[in-house]
């Protein structure tokens, strides 16, 4: 047929893995376990591949071009692995400290603007007056919700939540619930899109291949069998230790 053998095998493997992974939705079974261990192993292997790729491209290349200071980065990178050594594990703290310090610095310097000041500024700039009534109302509601939610997250001044003031937090919770409802519906949309992606793959790429229509029921029957508890299966007999 038109498709070459390599891509036929590729599609078959991908199809089997897809079906085996979905089976977890019903019950844990050995096919899922096999697929899952393949996944975890492949992911770890993939990380090594790109780790090596990155070390070569961003470390080795500048080093060979004369940026000798990068030797230090290499040495630090290698001592990261002392964390597995019983005695010298503390050496790995130095490279980790560089990574952590860099991460914190990059995060703090920008967070204060991007997630604190910019948000305050955007809220403070909302117009209640001089706009049409609906926009004015929406903006007012917006401001009230932001203020209420920030108020809700003030924990250590208990008097701020006593008596009638408690209503502010209650209101904040309602607003957050509305936002969670919105988020939840969006999450469904994401997941259905993903399920469709896999179903479409099985339907348009795998099933048209010769033999797939025959294989599908066999795969499903085997899966169902694998979900039967070991004691109830005629074969294979459960090992004593499990």
């Amino acid at each position, binding site marked *: 047929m038109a498709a070459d053998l390599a891509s036929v095998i590729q599609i078959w493997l991908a199809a089997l893995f897809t079906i085996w992974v979905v089976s*977890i939705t019903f019950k*844990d079974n050995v096919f*899922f*376990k096999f697929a*899952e261990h393949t996944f*975890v192993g492949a992911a770890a292997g993939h990380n090594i591949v790109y780790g090596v790729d990155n070390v070569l491209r961003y470390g080795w290349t500048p080093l060979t071009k004369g940026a000798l200071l990068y030797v230090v980065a290499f040495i630090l990178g290698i001592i990261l692995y002392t964390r597995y050594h019983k005695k010298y594990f503390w050496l790995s703290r130095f490279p980790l400290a560089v990574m952590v310090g860099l*991460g914190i610095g990059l995060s*703090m*310097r920008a967070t*204060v*603007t991007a997630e*604190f*000041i910019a948000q*305050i*500024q955007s*809220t*403070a*700039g*909302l*117009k*209640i*007056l001089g706009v049409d009534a609906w926009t004015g109302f929406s903006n007012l509601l917006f*401001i009230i919700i*932001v*203020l209420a939610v*920030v*108020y*809700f*997250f*003030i*924990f*250590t*001044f*208990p008097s*701020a*939540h006593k008596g009638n003031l408690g209503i502010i937090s209650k209101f904040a*919770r309602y607003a*957050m*619930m509305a936002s*969670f*409802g919105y*988020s*939840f519906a969006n*999450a469904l949309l994401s997941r259905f899109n993903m399920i469709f992606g896999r179903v479409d793959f099985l339907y348009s790429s795998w099933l048209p291949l010769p033999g797939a229509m025959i294989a599908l029921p066999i795969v499903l029957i085997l899966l169902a069998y694998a979900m039967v508890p070991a004691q109830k299966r005629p074969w294979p007999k459960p090992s004593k230790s499990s």
Partner: protein
Amino acid sequence: MLVAGRIFALGMLIALWIFIVGGMELAKKKLPQFRKIAGLDALPEMVGRAAEMNRPVHFTTGLGELTGTVAPQLVAGLAVLGHVSELAAKYGVKIVYSVYQAQVMPLATEIMREAYIRAGKADAFNAEDQIRYLSGEQFAYAAAVQGFAERERPAANIMIGPFYAESQLFAETFFRVGAIQLAGTARGYQIPFFAVVCDYLLIAEEIYAAGAYLSKDALQCGSIQGQDLGKIVAWILMFVGVLATAAGTPIIINLLKA
């Protein structure tokens, strides 16, 4: 030379630094008071229900490592674990903690043993049976927790920590076996799932407050008080800013842009 447009941000960062460090110093002398945290109040009722039904309580702290950025969530989860363990010991209910991170095992054992000692039931604690290391792989761990839920049908399920996609599997499975659930995470994507399925909810930063409040750790409590001051500043800036905008002056906006 200060960079224009970043001056206010720098000032704010310094102010926050002072709030947080100051808060921690003050807390060493006297712990701050905390507001009521609705979810925590439900705990005695949840554990009591388990006692009535003679079924276990299940606890988990989700994924993440003690060394990563989500570590504070894990620490908060462990603080709640200590509190729930004490309640469970008092009520004579079995509490089972499902662990994802092998590195947490010794810490969790210590926390739970101390809780049982505080409740005067040191003998009732069986670490082997109550702290279960399931797997260090997300979905294997999820499958194992689901298996536990279906076999032992816990009366209550408490999930506090950094949760990822497995949160949906847990919430649904425990709901199905009839467990009453309390959940909390600061991972924004997972909160909605908990909000829909669980009976009690700790929202985002609430888990840190809950952890600090229960552990009575001066540094954590103080840090939260420092952050609260930051929130008050944000509140005032927004409130005054809105009024200023309504009055037609961009004074606050310009200040923030400085």
